[in-house]
């Protein structure tokens, strides 16, 4: 192990990176694009569903109910229809995905707890719409409360649930998404960059020349990977800045701890990249394998779907992924002002991943061609 040789590799890698405009564009481009995409477009919090209303009762209470639903912004009433057939037709044409039907005997129904007073018709083909519409039934509707209380106090339990939302009272998706995106973006770029950078040496024939020199595989690997730690930290900074400026996402905990957690996580991703590089023969293969590790992480880590809602087997699998642990760390520090010390076991899990991956990679990495 010679520091001079290690530094020679780092220097060479930096010069090559500086010349590689595409990679450079990806370092800045991927985080920016993903952040804006996930932040704005892929808003998991569904609002403004196109809806129609059929108010056959047309009483004070029914009008209040409609007004309240409209003000919730979950539904966007595009049409007021006069007959049930029109709902059918509009939904088939895709003009609306939700319809609210208030029957003629709305007032009487309100007075009786055993029959639903009104109906929500949902285009069930889109699961997320279905889920959003289902939330409506738990929506605290003041008008119903009022009506029920007036007619038969204390017996109706329609607005029974009051949802208290702690860290995201406005139920804004970016609050949760931005910290998660730090993990997702690093999982994508770090693994791909390192795996490809190492495989490239082999694919272009440089490895054959390097193997005949005193350079050790360890020096070569670490030298090639070190610059990417810096690049990962640049990406973290970029996401934090954009998150703050564009989406108003705060860092409630210690900024230093955010970076500490990020460094350990970056090391995990880099070691995964190094491991992949020992398996892949070409840059294309390395890319494929990187995506293969990326997809389950994004799906199971709790970034897309809540961890608690997953089947037990999926949860066990998710515990293997570094992203799962990093999400808990970064959401804890950024949103709940948690201290790194309180979540040391998540950090330990990441460290264990690094040790295992690097050991396997070193064992597999031969300084020979056969």
């Amino acid at each position, binding site marked *: 192990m010679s520091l*001079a*040789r290690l530094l*020679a*590799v780092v220097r*060479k890698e930096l010069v090559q990176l500086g010349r590689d405009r595409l990679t450079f564009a990806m370092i800045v481009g991927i985080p920016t694009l993903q952040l804006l995409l996930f932040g704005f477009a892929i808003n998991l919090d569904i609002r403004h569903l196109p809806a129609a209303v059929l108010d056959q009762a047309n009483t004070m209470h029914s009008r209040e109910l409609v007004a309240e639903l409209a003000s919730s912004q979950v539904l966007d009433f595009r049409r007021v229809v006069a007959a049930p057939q029109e709902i059918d037709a509009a939904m088939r044409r895709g003009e609306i995905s939700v319809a609210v039907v208030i029957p003629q005997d709305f007032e009487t129904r309100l007075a009786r707890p055993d029959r639903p007073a009104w109906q929500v018709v949902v285009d069930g083909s889109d699961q997320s719409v279905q889920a959003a519409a289902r939330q409506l039934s738990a929506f605290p509707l003041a008008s119903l409360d009022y009506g029920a209380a007036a007619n038969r106090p204390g017996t109706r339990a329609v607005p029974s649930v009051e949802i208290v939302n702690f860290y995201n009272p406005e139920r804004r998706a970016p609050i949760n998404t931005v910290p998660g995106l730090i993990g997702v973006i690093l999982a994508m770029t770090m693994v791909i960059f390192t795996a490809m950078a190492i495989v490239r040496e082999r694919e*272009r024939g440089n490895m054959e020349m390097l193997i*005949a020199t*005193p350079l050790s595989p360890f020096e070569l690997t670490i030298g090639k990977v070190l610059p990417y730690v810096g690049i990962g930290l640049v990406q973290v900074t970029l996401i934090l800045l954009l998150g703050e400026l564009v989406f108003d996402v705060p860092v409630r905990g210690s900024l230093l701890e955010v970076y500490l957690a990020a460094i350990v996580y970056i090391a995990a991703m880099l070691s995964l990249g190094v491991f992949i590089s020992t398996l892949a023969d070409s840059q294309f293969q390395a890319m494929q394998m990187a995506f293969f590790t990326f997809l389950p992480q994004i799906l199971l880590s709790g970034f897309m779907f809540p961890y608690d809602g997953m089947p037990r087997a999926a949860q066990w699998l998710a515990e293997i992924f570094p992203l799962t642990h990093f999400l808990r760390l970064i959401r804890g520090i950024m949103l709940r002002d948690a201290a790194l010390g309180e979540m040391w076991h998540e950090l330990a899990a990441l460290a264990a991943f690094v040790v295992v991956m690097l050991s396997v990679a070193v064992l597999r990495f031969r300084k*020979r061609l056969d």
Partner: protein
Amino acid sequence: MAAEARAQESVIVAHGLTKRFGDLVAVDHLDLDVRRAEIYGFLGPNGCGKSTTIRMLCGLLRPSEGEVSVLGQALPRGAETVKRAIGYMTQKFSLYEDLSVRQNLEFLAAVHGLRGASARARLEEMYARYHLGELKERLAGTLSGGQKQRLALAGAVLHEPELLLLDEPTSAVDPQSRRDFWDALFDLAEAGTTLLVSTHYMDEAERCHRLAILDRGRLVADGSPQRLMADLPGSTFRVDCGQPRRVQLALAREAHVLGVAQIGSSLRVLTDRRDGADWLRERVRAIDADAEVEAVAANLEDVFVAATRKSAVEAAA
């Protein structure tokens, strides 16, 4: 006397060196003895095991069987020690195309542990000796074939290796660059470096001090080019005739004819008979009455054809 003893010192010794890739035997029980400061050639067609042998000698591949020692170190155990004292010029250009000439050489100097003033002095020497001064800031990927080859050579000898292994170094360059390149190799040998060069060019093989002819992984002949030509166990003739193509096809079927090649309007015929002149004249005149047969001096190509043909017959038997 001391210098002579030094010249007799073996740099590469191999006994029964073998490399298998699955069922394929790429190198088959090769015996080698390469002496200090000589230019030793590997001559053979593509796929004859030249590159595989060179890769085993620099520790890139592990032999399947046999013993080999390089610079007194038994391989593969002493591979890391050997790597400090050898230079290896790969068949395909293997420096970084996206680095400049200077950056490539500076990287290699650092990898080899050269630093400070001595590294700078050595780099300047390399620029001057291999005419790279003007090209210093050019990206290696933008150089011509001959320029790339000079850069690769500079990279391989930067750390003054005792042994330089070159795998088909001149396959991508023009004849003038090839001549200049060989002058550079002779300079290195003069200075005491041992060189092992693989090639499939006869004219290059002829320039080597000693030569090994490889065919399908086996050593089929070795010695100095002059020795090999003198020891050719047959004779070579020039046949002038009206219908060279027809005569060529007829002769190719003859048992004692090892090779027939058309050169311009005449044929060059290699037979395995010492007294082949009368015999051949008779055969040729049966096809073309006006044909003239004349004995000519053997060249290295004849040696190559005779040796590989002999090994093919032995393999078939």
